[in-house]
Structure formats: C-alpha cells, structure tokens
C-alpha cells in the first residue's frame, strides 16, 4: 500500500470514528434546553401530561377542563392526559421511559423523584430561564392567560421545587397532614382536647381507649374492633417526629442520619403502644377513615387531601352506611413534642417539564404547565380536597375567599371537615417543612416508614422487639433501601477513582498525543536533515 492510499484510508477511518463518536454522544445525552427566542405558532405540538388524582372524578374532570381551556387558547397544542392514582406508579413509569426517551412532556411529581430523574443528563428541563423569560415566563407578556408572577407563588412552596440551586418543578397543590379526632370518644374517656395535640396526650388517650373486656369487646365503642390511633403515612410520621425533636434524618447533601438513637427511642414508643393495642398503621390494618367513621378509631392521621373521607358526614365513604356511627369530628394539627413551636410536613403534587430534542416542544409544554397555576385551575382543584392553592393570587381571589367562609353549608363542596383542614394548612404555612431532596431521598423516606411498619408488625406477631431486634432492623432496612449506596453531594469534590474505561481512554489519548508529537518531531528533524544535505 502506498503512503497516499494509507493516508486516505486513515483519514476515512478517522472520519467514520469521529462520526460514530458524535453519534454516540447524541444517543446517550439529550442536549441541554435553551429557551427559544420565539414560540413557533406555525407548528402543531402534541404533548403528554401524566397526572395524578386521588381516585376522584372531580379532579380528573378539572384536568380535562383545564386541557380543553388551554387548547382553546393555543389551538396548535394538543394535550393528551394519562391518569394515575399514585405517585409511585408515575415514578416507575418515568424511570422506564427515560431509558427509551419517551418521557411525558409534563408530569405531576414529587421533588424526591425529580432528584432521581436528574441522574440522567438533561432529562428534566431546568425552569429558571423559563421563569424569567419576559415573553413566555411567569407573568410573561406573550401569554394568552393570566399567569402568576414569580413572587406570587408562595415562596416556601416554590422553594421545595429547587434542587441544587435550580428550579426543576413548579408547585401545583399543597397539603399537610391533619389529625382527625373522634372528639366524642375523647370526652367519653374523660379527657379534654388540648389546643394543640401532644404525642404524650395521644398515646395516653389511645391506651385508655384500648381497654376491652374478657370477650374482646372494647368499653369505648362496644365493638370487637378498635384501633385508637391509626396512621396513614408512617414515613411522614417518622420524619415529623424526628424533625420536631431536631433529631437526625438526613443532611441537605444527602448524608443519611436516620438510624440514630432518637429514632430507636421513637420506635420503642411505637412498640410499647402497639403492644397495648393503641396503635396501628394503614398498611397493616386499613384506611384510617374507614375505622374513624365506623367508630373504631379515636385519632386518625391522614393528609388534609384525604379530608373528604373523614367524619360521619363525609361525602366520600368506603364503608356501608349502616356501619357509620355518629360522632363529633375535630380537625387538629398532628401531635407535637413542642406545642409552642409546631412543625408539620408540607406535601402535595408538583409539576415538572421533561426536556426534549425540540426546544419548541419544551416551550409548548412549559406553557401548559404554567397554565395549571392560573386561578381557575388552582381554585377548582383545591376545592376537591383539603388542598391549598400554591399562588397568592388564587388564595386571595374573592372566589376562593368566599369558599373559605362557607364551611359547613353542605356536605359536598363546603364540607366542614375539609375546609377546616385547609384552614389548618393556610394558618400554619410558616410551620411547614420539607425534607432534603437528593438522589436517594425517596428511598430514605420509604425506609423511615418501613421502620415503623416493621416494628408494629413484629409486635403484633408476638416477636421480641429489643436492642438486638433494632440492630438487625437498622441493618436490614439500610440494605433493603440501598441507603449505604447513597453518596452525599458533599463528597463531590473527591469523586473517587475513575472508572476503568475512563482510565483507558485517558491513556489512549495521552499515547496518541505522544505519537503525534513524536511523529512531528521526527518529520521536523528529517526535513532539517534533508535541507542540510541539499
């Protein structure tokens, strides 16, 4: 082979390799999103919206109405709705679809979940530039609807959507937990409800309510079933108790602090009260609302967004009418360790926008996501359950203010328990908190709840719950949720050893440059030698 042929062959091979390399990069990573200068309205866009509802037809109707209203404003954007009834399913489907680059355009989500999505490159669109865009951003001049300005989104709700200094979501609805109390039973036991529930009070009354005769009939309700204290979300239970005690859960950077002595003490209390028949959980026994409404529960803790199921006049009911008993329902803040400084979790759906190859499609998605913040959508959806709107414009809207004043007018839209639950949240927005978000925070949350579930279940099964049990429980839970594999972001400065492929790549690059420089030096020397000879 002549040198000329060799050179052409090498050049061709290089071109092929470069093309392959470029193609490889294009396939693995989505390009970073940049806001287009102008929304191209000459094109049609089909976007998908994965939404979560609380198995509530009114909510799905509101989503559908919002889509219809939005499409009327933007006839070139078609929104396809896909409904889910729990966040876990959305999360699992998104993870699956990231692999095939078939994520939805807009998705109801939790910040914990976004943290996992973000481990893929440019999977979720960062929203900071979109927020600030003067034409299509929050309150933008080119929008065809009245969008809230940035400062009109409740700051602490917006803050929850910020990960590593960048906004990746907008809040959609917010709720907290409430304790729905059978006040009739509390007073029948000789107690008076305090202004703020304490854990000690709840445990004490619950143990008193657990008294039964030799036939298994409870003195309080005359039935053979009584779960005095029933908690729906045990992950929230553990998280809030730890927070109230200023005990460890995790650092902002993702260091897991859950497995500490305070947690152990709390679990001991759970075990003690479970053994006394005073406590159980949703996963073990069933929905708190069903037991509360059947007169089989004194303290039922669930989301304010579950308030339409709570109380003997609840508009939504899963138990037969003949099983419902009459009682007075009190809606109270969750129990506190320090009533003077109450703390409760902030929760509820947020909305994220997934990145796509076409920035115009992302912009169309953003327009729809932003539309969900408009007053009609915010007010309508918040009225379906014990949700609070996330914008001050919606909260201060005369329509919403009127709604708040009409508690008890009926057992549907103005169902008193629901409105009192919302008021609880609105009055205590400053007392709400969220847990740190990082890749693995969703697992940590599950683990926190699992500790309570495991202890409760073990006690009910007559297993010994002692120090050795706790040691094993900690080890097993940490392993089950892969918490030992979580790398705190603080460690980013020392990222550990490079992968083997990277090391090989660097060696090859170095070797190639040595050869290139060597070859150039050799050529230079040869030319100089030739010149000298001439």
């Amino acid at each position: 082979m002549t040198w000329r042929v060799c050179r052409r062959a090498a050049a061709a091979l290089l071109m092929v390799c470069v093309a392959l390399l470029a193609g490889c990069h294009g396939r693995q990573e989505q390009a970073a999103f940049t806001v287009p200068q102008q929304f191209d309205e000459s094109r049609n866009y089909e976007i998908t919206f994965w939404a979560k509802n609380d198995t509530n037809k009114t909510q799905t109707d509101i989503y559908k109405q919002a889509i219809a209203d939005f499409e009327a404003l933007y006839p070139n954007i078609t929104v396809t709705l896909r409904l889910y009834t729990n966040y876990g399913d959305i999360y699992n489907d998104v993870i699956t679809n990231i692999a095939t680059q078939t994520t939805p355009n807009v998705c109801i989500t939790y910040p914990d979940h976004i943290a996992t999505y973000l481990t893929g490159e440019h999977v979720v669109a960062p929203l900071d530039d979109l927020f600030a865009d003067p034409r299509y951003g929050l309150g933008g001049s080119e929008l065809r609807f009245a969008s809230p300005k940035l400062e009109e989104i409740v700051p602490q709700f917006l803050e929850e959507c910020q990960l590593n200094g960048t906004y990746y979501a907008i809040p959609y609805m917010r709720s907290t937990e409430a304790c729905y109390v059978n006040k009739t039973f509390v007073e029948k036991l000789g107690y008076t409800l305090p202004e703020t529930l304490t854990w000690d009070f709840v445990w004490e009354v619950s143990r008193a309510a657990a008294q039964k005769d030799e036939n298994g009939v409870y003195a309080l309700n005359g039935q053979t079933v009584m779960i005095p204290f029933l908690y729906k979300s045990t992950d929230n239970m553990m998280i809030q108790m730890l927070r109230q005690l200023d005990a460890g859960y995790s650092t902002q950077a993702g260091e897991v602090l859950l497995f500490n002595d305070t947690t152990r003490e709390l679990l001991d209390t759970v075990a003690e009260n479970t053994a006394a028949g005073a406590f159980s959980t949703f996963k073990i026994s069933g929905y708190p609302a069903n037991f509360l409404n059947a007169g089989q529960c004194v303290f039922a803790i669930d989301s304010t967004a579950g308030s339409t199921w709570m109380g003997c006049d609840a508009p939504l009911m899963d138990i037969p009418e003949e099983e419902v008993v009459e009682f007075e329902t009190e809606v109270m803040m969750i129990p506190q360790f320090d009533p003077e400084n109450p703390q409760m979790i902030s929760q509820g759906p947020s909305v994220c926008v997934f990145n796509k190859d076409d920035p115009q499609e992302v912009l169309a998605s953003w327009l729809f996501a932003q539309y969900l913040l408009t007053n009609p959508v915010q007010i309508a959806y918040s009225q379906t359950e014990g949700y609070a709107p996330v914008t001050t414009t919606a909260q201060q809207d005369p329509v919403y203010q009127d709604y708040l004043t009409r508690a008890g007018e009926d057992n549907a839209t103005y169902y008193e328990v629901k409105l009192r639950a919302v008021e609880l949240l609105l009055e205590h927005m400053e007392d709400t908190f969220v847990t740190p978000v990082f890749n693995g925070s969703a697992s940590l949350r599950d683990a926190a709840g699992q500790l309570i579930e495991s202890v409760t279940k073990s006690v009910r099964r007559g297993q010994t719950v002692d120090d050795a049990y706790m040691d094993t429980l900690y080890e097993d839970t940490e392993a089950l949720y892969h918490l030992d594999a979580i790398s705190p972001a603080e460690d980013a400065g020392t990222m550990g050893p490079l992968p083997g492929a990277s090391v090989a790549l660097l060696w090859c690059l170095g070797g190639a440059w040595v050869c290139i420089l060597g070859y150039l030096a050799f050529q230079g020397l040869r030319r100089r030698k030739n010149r000298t000879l001439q």
Partner: protein
Amino acid sequence: MKKFVAVLLVLCLAVMATACAAETTQPTATPTQEAVETPAPTEEAEETPAPTEEAGEETPAPTEEAEETAAPAEGDVMSYEEYVAAELETEVTIEAYVQAKQSWWEDQATVYAQDEDGAYFLYNMACSEEDYALLTPGTCIRVTGYKTEWSGEVEIMDGTFEIVEGVEPYIATAMDVTELLGTDTLIDNQNKFVAFKGLTVEAAGQDADGNDVAFLYNWDGSGEEGDDLYFNASYNGETYTFTIESDLCDSTTEVYAAVKALEIGQTIDMEGFLYWYEGVNPHITSVTVVE
C-alpha cells in the same frame, strides 16, 4: 511510522467510542411500593394512595436453598379448618392449589389459591419472576406466612412458598353463591372461586351528559381504559357492586371487554373470586350475558 500513527489514532478513537457507549447515565429506580386493590380515599401517604399492604418485605424469594430451610415439616401443614381457627397475626402453613395469579412486583406475588375445603388470598408472597412463571393454575404450593386481615379481607401475607411436586393439579369448580348474597354466611366462602347467576345489570353511575352507564372506570368513574372496572348487578331487589380488578384481568381480557359491553337491564352470569373490601367485593373473571 505514518501507518503506525494512523492506526493508533483510529484505535484511540475506537476506545473512546467504546468508553462513551459504556457510560450511560440512566437513573435507577429505588424500591417503591406497589399495589392498587381498591379505591383510595386519600392523596397518598402521600405517595401510595392505594392499599399497599406491605412495602419491601424482606422475606427471601423461594430459592431452592431457602425452600429447604423455610419449608415446614409435613405435619405442620394446617387443614383449612385449622387455618380458619388460627388467630390473626400468627404464622400459618397451608397447602393449596393456585387458581389465579393477580400480580407480581419486585419479587412479590399475589395469588388466589384454593383446595377442596377452602380458599386463600396470598398477598405479597416472596417470589422471583422465574418462580412466578411456574405458578400455573392447578399447581400445588405449600405456603408459610402470617394470617392477617386488611379491611375485612383475611389473607396470608409475607409468605414464602414451595411447589409441592407429584401432586395432581386441582382447579376449583365455581361454587354458586347467588343465594348467599346479602347473607352473613357469604363471608365463609371468602376468596373462593364462585359463581353468581341470573343477576340484572344496574346503572353504575352517570356519564358527563347525565346518562346512566353500566360500568365505571374506577369506583367513581375517575379512571380510564386499563383501570379497574366497577359495575352493579342486582338480585332479589338488592344491588351489589362487582369489580374487574385490572391486575387480575387487564384490558386485553375477554371479561374486561365483556363488562365494557354490558347494558343496563341485561341478565348475566358471572364467575370470579370472592374478595373482600369493607364488605363483599368480588373480583370477576368472566361475565356471560344470558338474556
């Protein structure tokens, strides 16, 4: 030399391309909870609104090694009567025949099983995906787990199982419980494969235009294609609700299509499993319009 450099450069780029291809940045799902059996009254907790009875149980899948240690002695297997008599939250061991598989998720299977004496709902039984494929209808399995109750449904949860070899398969014949509807004895047949005959389809709700409809997606019509179907049927003047549990019979099944085609006033025969949720909540597997 030139050839060598050219070849080396090509090799370098090939290695770079390979390294690039190997470095994917795919997010990985963490253990999440599962479930979905019945309408959820709340937002979530706030993450799992459906009755996810147990998340991430730690019982091992029935590998051969595990089976050897977990399997009870033959004499420890309870009769159905002994199982019924056992206290809730106690460990039980039973032998029964798989009748239907409801779901598999993260190495946990939910299965209907039955023998000639009674039926069992095996909830979140440790099971690898490979073992799940072996759980064909009629297969005899020995299950050890805890007897529990969730919203009226008595079940065995946190179980492990082994397949009992050399036993003739058994498929239960649907027991006609039509006359037991509305009686206190119906619950004695909980989880059995049963039949309801000669019921009349009633309105399940109304559509957006206010017209009566024969079925709903989810209990209140909040769902869509692929979700559970709910429909009502009456007998002797009393109306009962029946469910097509989408995990048990998804939207590709005949029964799913049959329910979507129901018309109010039709007389139907049905078969299914006598599941319980705050009262009888049969999971229907076949529907036949008889007139």
